[in-house]
């Protein structure tokens, strides 16, 4: 059992947890993740280690509620526990002083990009961060990102905050302004990562993305997380999750991630129905 010591929402549907896991806190490096299982009936899902505190013996994860498991997790509070937390998994980010490094985060991808942005800064890079969200209230980690950036930009799709447009438009603008970019890290939804790769490809800018295929064990045992890199299968849980963006077959990743869509929707529907009933029962009891 792994105890949650702190839990708070950063934005609607995005929750930050601090979990007691002293050993993982000590060993983890930027870019690595854990796999969690909420309870006996739960599935195993991967979540990036956004931060850790060695003294307190905790790790931080930031979770976007997109389906049954993440929504169920986001109902947990400080004091609750998670049955299984295993890690640190995956290869740590490759960090060096590239010169000017751009970290691009889309949605909850900002949380995943954050630890690597910290490491890039510590390695001496001039760090530019571009964080995209659909609208103002979905922007997360604004202060944290600012504190590690030499230049920090926020973009919103609806223009309610910061630059009006997509992260790629902002990136293109920086390139057009004549900024010499040496390294780009992009983490977010698959279409966003693909779009970033398409922007940087003609300029030959080294670009890395963190891939999010469906995982089970996270140890290289099932092969379910295989992604095509230069047409060759790689296991994202042991060979990744970060790969050269220009070598990734994004269509294949998107196709494979959709394998269980119907099942996921059914599970979510049942779960929400269950929550609604529980709430009703609770209200009825309170009325009495």
């Amino acid at each position: 059992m792994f105890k949650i010591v702190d839990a708070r929402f950063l934005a609607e549907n995005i929750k930050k947890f601090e979990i007691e896991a002293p050993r993982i806190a000590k060993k983890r490096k930027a870019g690595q993740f854990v796999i969690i299982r909420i309870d006996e009936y739960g599935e195993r899902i991967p979540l990036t280690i956004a931060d850790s505190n060695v003294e307190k013996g905790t790790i931080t994860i930031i979770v976007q509620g997109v389906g049954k498991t993440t929504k169920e997790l986001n109902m947990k509070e400080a004091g609750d526990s998670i049955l299984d937390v295993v890690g640190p998994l995956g290869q740590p980010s490759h960090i060096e002083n590239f010169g000017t490094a751009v970290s691009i985060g889309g949605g909850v991808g900002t949380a995943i990009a954050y630890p690597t942005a910290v490491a890039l800064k510590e390695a001496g890079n001039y760090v530019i961060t571009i964080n995209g969200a659909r609208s103002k209230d979905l922007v997360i980690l604004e202060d944290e990102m600012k504190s590690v950036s030499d230049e920090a930009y926020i973009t919103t799709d609806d223009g309610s905050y910061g630059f009006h447009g997509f992260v790629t438009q902002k990136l293109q603008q920086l390139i057009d302004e004549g900024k010499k970019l040496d390294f780009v890290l992009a983490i977010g939804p698959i279409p966003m990562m693909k779009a970033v790769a398409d922007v940087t490809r003609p300029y030959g800018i080294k670009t890395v993305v963190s891939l999010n295929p469906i995982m089970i064990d996270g140890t290289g045992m099932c092969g379910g997380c295989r992604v095509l890199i230069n047409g060759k299968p790689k296991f994202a849980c042991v060979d990744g999750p970060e790969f050269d963006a220009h070598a990734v077959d994004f269509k294949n990743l998107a196709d494979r991630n959709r394998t269980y869509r119907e099942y996921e929707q059914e599970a979510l529907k049942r779960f929400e129905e269950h929550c609604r009933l529980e709430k009703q029962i609770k209200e009825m009891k309170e009325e009495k």
Partner: protein
Amino acid sequence: MSKLTPKERLKIPRHPMIEQDPMERSHNFNEVNLGYTAQLAMAEADRCLQCPKPTCVEGCPVHIQIKDFIGLIAEGDFLGAVKKIKEDNALPAICGRVCPQEEQCEESCVVAKRGEPVAIGHLERFVADYERNSGKIEIPEVKKSNGKKVAIVGSGPAGLSCAKDLCAKGYDVTVFEALHELGGVLVYGIPEFRLPKDIVRTEIDGLKKMGVKFQTDTIIGRLYTIDELFEEEGFDAVFLGVGAGLPWFLGIEGENLDGVYSANEFLTRVNLMKAYKFPEYDSPILDLHGKNVAVFGGGNTAMDAVRTALRLGAKNAYIIYRRSEKEMPARVEEVKHAKEEGVQFMLLTNPVRLIGDDEGWLKAVELIKMELGEPDASGRRRPIPIEGSNFTMDMDVAIVAIGNGPNPLIMKTTPEIEVSKRNTIVVDPETMKTSKKGVFAGGDIVTGGATVILAMGAGRKAAAAIDEYIQTGKW
């Protein structure tokens, strides 16, 4: 023992195992084999000639005293029989179920020369089940603590048997397991209908009662390096029983399509994550009702996958294997059971390409016919494609079950451990010592994918060597 002459004994036909009806069992996950009754077991034991030189024992990789335990069954002393087995085999309920007996103990039984061999596996299984059901499982005697600590990495049969022996000798033993459940392939690979998970759990509970400590969710190489186990955690020796869990793929076009699984993924979803009970359990598996499913391969893993597919509702479940039935590495009983349940065997056939639709879903497989040529390095006749014999078949799901290699995780983080070209750990075959002081290894990580009994035997051998190393300090 009843007074029968050898001639009379030889006349008794082998007693078949009671089994679930094939049509019924192909739709449920309950165990296929139902076991012997006491009466059947004693009758089968009467078939044993009690040979002065029991050749059967030579055929068993861990030299179980087969003649003696069968003698005890014939006398009705079932608990005595299981005790006899346990002198050499820590996991009889498991080995009795999954050993390839037809090429081990039973192949070497003299009765096999005149007909069918004594059903050694069934008898071993019977007494182990008898003991478990009687509630009289004897917890082995544990010597007084000697204050020495041993770390066991991996909770498969190799790790469990090593842990058991060392614990009995008075060592402070901790087993580290990467997954959330203990048992290795016994829980994530071999399906419930062949090896009920309760049996594995009972064995592990026994170890817990002896005092073995277990730590799940712990990946050695990531959470602790091997050096840290020695330096920070104070272990005196480490045993690596990490298995061969890295699935191989065919390397053909279309293997990344939706609907293509490795056998490991398919079986892990069903066995470990209980996807056959979705949505009660959260992990999904593709609904196979009315679907065509192809499994590539001819080993136990392939049989487990194809029979699982049937149980998940597949309309047609095919084994597609590039050699002939004779070369299939699967246990004979599994092939027989698969056929009875309705699995369709396409032998001397090999996949060439997997064909998908625009959205990336598998739609068909292109296959080619094979013929057998000269024997290859494995001693089996090499399959050669017959040019121009390609054909395609509509297929919804394909499962690749062509074997597993060693997982390189530990070796990557501990480069001083010598590995072979095949990535297996190199050990001294007598002492199971690796090239790193204090580190021993055994099971599939050393042999490549092999058998439960070999892994168990290796674990026990290593336990003896670890004891000697810690007591003498000699490397």
